[in-house]
């Protein structure tokens, strides 16, 4: 299957471990978790802040594989093509570099993913429990979107 990727993503080839399609036609690049920040830094360096925005950060708990999957949905402008940067974190120690200092727009997504799934974004000073989850749940140390949370 030939995947047409715009020229903005040429440098992705050196990071992408795997490429797949999320319906309908959203190209997902699986990368190593330590590369996520480098990719965004390079995207900003090559094309600037006006060339894309991070639309959504979606975390998924995969207890069967002992992983937490993190998807960054990025909309490339001006053609508004949505691509996905996907990475897998160790479920027992889900840690990834924060992007909030280079892309302030990820603040809401990172805070939410931390509060609901327990992912730690290294370097984000705004992470806290109870940002979205009710405090009585947060105080018990429960991350509600984990499959074994019992919520």
């Amino acid at each position, binding site marked *: 299957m030939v995947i047409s990727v715009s020229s903005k993503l040429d440098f992705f080839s050196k990071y992408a471990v795997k490429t797949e399609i999320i*319906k309908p036609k*959203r190209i997902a690049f699986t990368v190593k978790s330590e590369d996520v920040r480098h990719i965004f830094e390079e995207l900003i360096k090559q094309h600037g802040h*006006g060339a894309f925005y991070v*639309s959504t950060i979606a975390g998924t708990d995969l207890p069967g594989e002992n992983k937490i999957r993190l998807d960054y*949905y990025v909309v490339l*402008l001006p053609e508004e093509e949505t691509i996905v940067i996907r990475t897998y974190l160790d479920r027992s120690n889900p840690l990834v570099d924060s992007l909030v200092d280079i892309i302030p727009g990820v603040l*809401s997504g990172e805070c939410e993913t931390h509060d609901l799934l327990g992912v730690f974004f290294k370097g984000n000073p705004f992470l806290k429990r109870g*940002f979205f989850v009710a405090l009585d749940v947060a105080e018990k140390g429960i991350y509600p979107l984990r499959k074994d949370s019992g919520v």
Partner: protein
Amino acid sequence: MVCNMGVTKVIEVPIITAEIPIGPQHPALHEPLLLKVYADGEEIIRAEVNTGYNHRGVEKLCEKNTFYRDLFIVGRVCGICNTVHANCYVRALEYLLDARPNNRARYLRVLAMELERIHSHMLINAVMAEIVGFDTLFMQIMLDRERVMKAKEILTGNRVLADYMIVGGVRRDIDEVKRARIRDLLLKLKPRVEYYKKVFMEDETIVKRLVDIGVLKPVDVTSHSLVGPVARGSGVKIDSRASDRYDAYDEIPFNVVTRTEGDSWARMMVRWDETLEAINMCLYILEKLPFDGNPVPDEKRLPRVIPHGESYARVEAQRGELTYYVMSDGRSPSPYRVKIRTPSFNNVINSAFMYVGLSIADVPVALTSLDPCISCMERVTVIDLEKNTRYKLTLRELAGGKV
């Protein structure tokens, strides 16, 4: 030492920085949200957004219920944009099923969503009129908004919560009588919207309160992931309808409205222009509604199992890009994961930087221009040195000398 001088009460009004909580509870507040601003005199020097007052656990609820029950849950994420939520979720399921509704259903879906856009944009413009102290205009707009509410009721069976979308189509078809009535209502509404747009352009009070307030540069919009009319008001052309061309948006002509000013006024004007575009789209749909079969699928024949896979749907809600990620494991009758990202989630939480430099009185205007609706509440702390207690007063009480 102070007590010795005969002073028993001190009013603590910080001279350097005053902390002013806006929300989370207030009669005029439409959403429980706390916007905490720090002011140096009248000027805002920092703003924080605090959420978590209304956690409902919708994503978890979706995982616990079946794919089809979730249709009713996602429609209740937000009252005023329930058809777009349902549409986005339904399309995510349709991508998984490789299903496509017929043309008539696709046109009717767009009709419902555009009617919703009209009443939502009218509501926030009315609220803006109220915020700037123009209550008569608020009432006038809300009165005319009733026409579109009626039109939506004729189409979907309900004024607000429609539950109109269903996998493979819509829940109700319309006949010639309904079509004529909706068209009639929209034709009566159109000159009123044109008039309100003129009021927003020419009225001195509105222009003075809105122009140059909360200016957002295009690069700030993209770096802070702001979407919808907020982005388009700053000249950033983001519109899922134009890029994803879902449902019948590939066949219905419309313009993506943008302005370059980037201030609160531009955002409200984008909404008025989009309202007019939406009315024209609805009239086009009512005129060209195709007849290619029944748009209402038989619920009993819907597929019981959703195939294994992932899908990510985008929809241009009234407030901006709304996204749904749905994952099915192919075995369970419930989704493995549903991720909802609403436009206000980005627009409200990530926009704290916008308030810096504004005066306190401009904060409600800037906030309303993002399309949540939160009013102001200022307080000071009174410290009673004799009793060693603290209590808070509103500025109104303070002005009335009730210290």
